[in-house]
């Protein structure tokens, strides 16, 4: 939870108006992200720790309740995919 994550070099997160969603772009590929994945990755800035990231999201989406488990699970997946790395 104390880890600070950042996007791996060459991985770019951006909003695509034509697709109406966030995407992750990388060499010759693209992942379309669903709303929650987009919302989580939007907060990854290479400065906040995972715990801080969870706090920010909980504040942003109060109706969603405790988010730590879901967020950590997704971030673990993103690290396993080598989209994110510990900075």
């Amino acid at each position, binding site marked *: 939870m104390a880890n600070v994550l950042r996007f791996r070099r060459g991985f770019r997160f951006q909003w695509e108006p*034509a697709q109406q969603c966030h*995407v992750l772009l990388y060499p*010759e590929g693209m992942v379309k992200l669903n709303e929650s994945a987009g919302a989580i990755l939007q907060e990854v800035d290479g400065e906040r720790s995972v715990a801080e990231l969870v706090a920010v999201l909980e504040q942003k989406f109060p109706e969603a309740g405790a988010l730590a488990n879901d967020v950590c699970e997704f971030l673990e997946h993103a690290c396993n995919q080598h989209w994110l790395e510990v900075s």
Partner: protein
Amino acid sequence: MTISSGASTDKAGHSVGPPLWLLAELTYRCPLQCPYCSNPLDFAQTEKELTTDEWVQVLRQGREMGAAQLGFSGGEPLVRPDLEELIAEARSLGYYTNLITSGLGLTEAKVNAFAAAGLDHIQVSFQASDPELNNAIAGSRKAFEQKLKMARAVKEAGYPMVLNFVVHRHNIHQMKDIMSLCERLDADFVELATCQYYGWALENREGLMPSKAQLERAEAEVNEYRAQLEASGCPMKLIFVTPDYYEERPKACMNGWGSLFLTVAPDGTALPCHSARLLPIEFPNVRDTHLKSVWYDSPGFNHYRGDAWMPEPCRSCDEKDKDFGGCRCQAYLLTGNADNADPVCSKSSYHDRILAARKAADHATVGIADLTYRNAENSRLFFKS
């Protein structure tokens, strides 16, 4: 790549999404002569290349339509003096910009200048894992050393790096060496792609296609290497593209005709895939047609959308949504009619032609020196007029 949900509909009522992938073939000029080059056989005859301004228009129109991935390829894109300018324009439009190069003509200064212009990624193609074989296939004496140097420069400048090896019967035994070379060079992705047999590669098929035994050994080696990488936590990703000639079902070519990919050739011809030019179909030119109507309205791009065009056996096949009947270019080249099922499919009445090629691969004796190399002299032999 994932498929987008479409907003627009074609005549048959199928939804047509935007072209998410734009391939800009800036030029057919190239200092190398690979015998499997994907450029047209008669490339030496190509008309005038698009100007910088014309390319800028294409990039703007494509991005407006929703294209997100952009490849600069060729030929060798580095021979275009306006490459840096085009990269900067593309990046400012929001594209993810990929440069697909042989590494020839690249310098450290250019690697850095392109990074400053916003280039996201550089893919360097190799012909083999050792200088002798690499240079023999590329038809150039200094190619290998230059490629190694540039691969190092690419990593040093902080780019993610894809190394691409075209795999065939003369280098497939080097698979392990190739993968360990890539690991030493710190590649992020490695594409081990067996040839697609169109154009130059079809001319040279017998001298390029690996035998089944060669292929099986290579597959086992790749799987073993992949497991090792995973166990050690190394992020290098191996992508092995095996030849469809050893399959019983064709690949879903380009994810479906006109569904994701839009290629613009050096002279401005717009194509649903880079080899579609060989088909007896008329394709629009971006010089006189807006990319939007190229993609949504042109007869060329609508020709094989949906499935109303399919004859048997595809028409009544329950797998047609999966592979779209396979590759139109392969169907045309091997059966003489681009509407036919891709003969890779075991349901095709032309499947025996694939079986014959497999058999030939078991006994082929064509040496590296016997291949037809991609150069202007050989290209002129293929002029249609």
